[in-house]
């Protein structure tokens, strides 16, 4: 406990330092906690193809003052629709936590069900607090405003290094504790939406590290990933950081593009899951002395599949919500692409297992559904339906091959397939954008004129940006998380005692047995 206290104190001190060095945004736009003045006539300009231009507005508002006032209300309503959309989609993504909890718990054994549920439940609170302390500020503090929500201008401070005349944004410095200038209706909405994405990442490693992880070290992990690791990579892609500027700086397409987070959310989670599972080692009895893997069937497949459906439902918020605008009617394409990819992901993983092992393994098909969703998350806004189905199909096959490879060749024990679903297919999704983006959307993305085109539509440089982002994610997240887990293990051991592992973690680690009324199998397998 003393060690735990020391770590928590150190974190608090660190955060306070961040806050003190970041309160210098004097000329930032006035923030609006009530939201009453957000959304004005200015938000009508250029909102649609036939919307008035600034010049028309300036001249006509003189002669028609009532129209100018009405335009103010129209602008407010436009922003309101976008904000309601963003919040609703954020609520959907929040519900994905329930999906993760059920899927992971269903795929693991009954004797650890309380513990697996507890991790999925508490990462919501722990991650959110960490993100509130400094995660959000590091990620979004320098994004420079969110146009579709008509504000958030206070988030204007990015820590940037200049190398050879090019700016490399590294992290934001406004919005610690959501206080000061960040006390603003738009910024709070952005926080909610970005927070639930971060929480998705943070909960992914609880799957690959399930059934053997000490709760103490898990708590420290929860703060670490939500305060630092996720926010940094997310800043580089979504917060105005250097990967998003690859287009402006080096003419690589639109820079690293990741519409809803195949890399930012899923790869980060999947790569962290891999690092964690490697450091933690396999569950007792998972591999025979000669290295042959042993099946450890999940205890509640209906629960796991219900979880996968909840995830698929939440994913509509994940992808379509990432427009941050209900008025951006591309949401129709995005939502449909999302479900098409999940369909082909499930179908092709089912067919692979059926043809190779004689039965349509439904647990793999459920993973395949998620794999399709993960893969379409980056390209969902930029591709057509044929590409979406194809991306999902590759994801479904890739998932099966990867699960078997991770287990049988790499000898990494990943009870729920998190590394393959999120890591491998996250990488595929990022690349798929660079291949299949068809140039019908994304005009001006990341400050680069024109729509987003992939290799097959004539822009090979977009694929290069995607590759750069993908490799950066693997290297950055893996190295940081591997070192973190190794160091943490020295302070607070990651692994429970072998006797506890055989007995089940429920009583010892979280003091709640999931099924106290049943005799459970408490042996090696």
């Amino acid at each position, binding site marked *: 406990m003393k060690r735990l206290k020391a770590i928590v104190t150190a974190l608090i001190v660190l955060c306070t330092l961040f806050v003190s060095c970041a309160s210098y945004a004097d000329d930032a736009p006035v923030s609006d906690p009530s939201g009453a003045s957000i959304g004005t006539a200015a938000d009508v300009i250029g909102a649609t193809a036939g919307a008035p231009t600034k010049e028309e507005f300036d001249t006509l508002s003189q002669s028609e003052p009532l129209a100018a006032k009405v335009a103010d209300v129209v602008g407010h309503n436009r922003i309101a629709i976008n904000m309601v959309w963003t919040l609703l989609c954020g609520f959907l993504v929040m519900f994905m936590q329930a999906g993760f909890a059920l899927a992971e718990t269903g795929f693991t054994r009954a004797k650890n069900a309380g513990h697996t549920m507890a991790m999925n439940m508490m990462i919501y609170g722990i991650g959110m607090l960490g993100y509130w302390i400094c995660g959000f500020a590091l990620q979004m503090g320098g994004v420079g405003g969110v146009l579709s929500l008509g504000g958030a201008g206070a988030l204007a401070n990015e820590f940037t290094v200049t190398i050879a005349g090019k700016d490399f944004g590294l992290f934001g410095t406004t919005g610690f504790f959501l206080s000061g200038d960040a006390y603003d209706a738009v910024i709070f909405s952005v926080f909610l939406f970005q927070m639930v994405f971060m929480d998705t990442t943070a909960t992914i490693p609880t799957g690959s590290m399930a059934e053997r992880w000490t709760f103490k070290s898990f708590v420290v992990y929860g703060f670490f990933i939500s305060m630092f690791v996720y926010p940094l990579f997310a800043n580089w892609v979504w917060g105005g950081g250097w990967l998003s500027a690859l287009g402006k700086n080096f003419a690589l397409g639109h820079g690293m593009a990741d519409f809803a987070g195949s890399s930012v959310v899923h790869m980060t989670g999947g790569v962290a899951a891999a690092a964690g599972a490697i450091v933690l080692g396999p569950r007792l009895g998972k591999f025979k002395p000669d290295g042959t893997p042993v099946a450890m069937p999940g205890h509640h497949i209906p629960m796991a599949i219900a979880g996968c459906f909840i995830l698929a439902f939440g994913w509509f918020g994940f992808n379509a919500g990432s427009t941050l605008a209900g008025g951006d009617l591309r949401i129709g394409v995005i939502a449909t692409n999302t479900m098409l990819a999940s369909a082909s992901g499930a179908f092709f993983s089912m067919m692979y297992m059926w043809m*190779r092992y004689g039965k349509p*393994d439904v647990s793999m098909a459920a993973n395949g559904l998620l794999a399709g969703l993960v893969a379409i998350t980056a390209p969902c806004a930029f591709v057509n339906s044929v590409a979406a189905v194809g991306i999902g199909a590759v994801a479904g096959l890739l998932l099966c091959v990867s699960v078997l490879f991770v287990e049988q060749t790499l000898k990494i024990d990943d009870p729920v397939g998190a590394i393959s679903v999120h890591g491998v297919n996250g990488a595929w999704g990022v690349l798929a954008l660079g291949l299949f983006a068809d140039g019908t959307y994304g005009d001006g993305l990341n400050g680069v004129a024109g729509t987003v085109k992939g290799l097959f539509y004539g822009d090979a440089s977009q694929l290069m940006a995607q590759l750069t982002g993908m490799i950066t994610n693997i290297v950055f997240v893996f190295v940081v998380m591997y070192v973190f887990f190794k160091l943490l293990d020295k302070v607070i051991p990651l692994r429970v005692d072998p006797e506890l592992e055989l007995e089940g973690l429920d009583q010892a680690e979280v003091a709640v047995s999931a099924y106290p009324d049943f005799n459970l199998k408490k042996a090696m397998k």
Partner: protein
Amino acid sequence: MKKIEAIIKPFKLDAVKDALIAIGVFGLTVTEVRGYGRQRGHVETYRGLEYEVQFNSKIKIETVVPDGMSDQVVKAITTAARTGSIGDGKIFISTLEEVIRIRTGEEGVDAI
């Protein structure tokens, strides 16, 4: 008195119960059990891995009957529980010393 225990396939429970009621056996205790016989276990697959289920799920029924009824009960159980394939189960018969009905204190055949 004889105590008759039988290990049967789980899906045969209803048929066996009906057959026993038809010949006038009025008490039956049912337990879900796991175990193996000559059949040993069987192989299942999970996410591309085969694994051996060493103990198969079975149902154990227990009933107590007067000495003279034993053969009739065995016939009823074998007829109802037999599928002809491996794993149909077994019947064990043993002599029982005493039966007591807790409510009334009756003993022996009267207590059955």
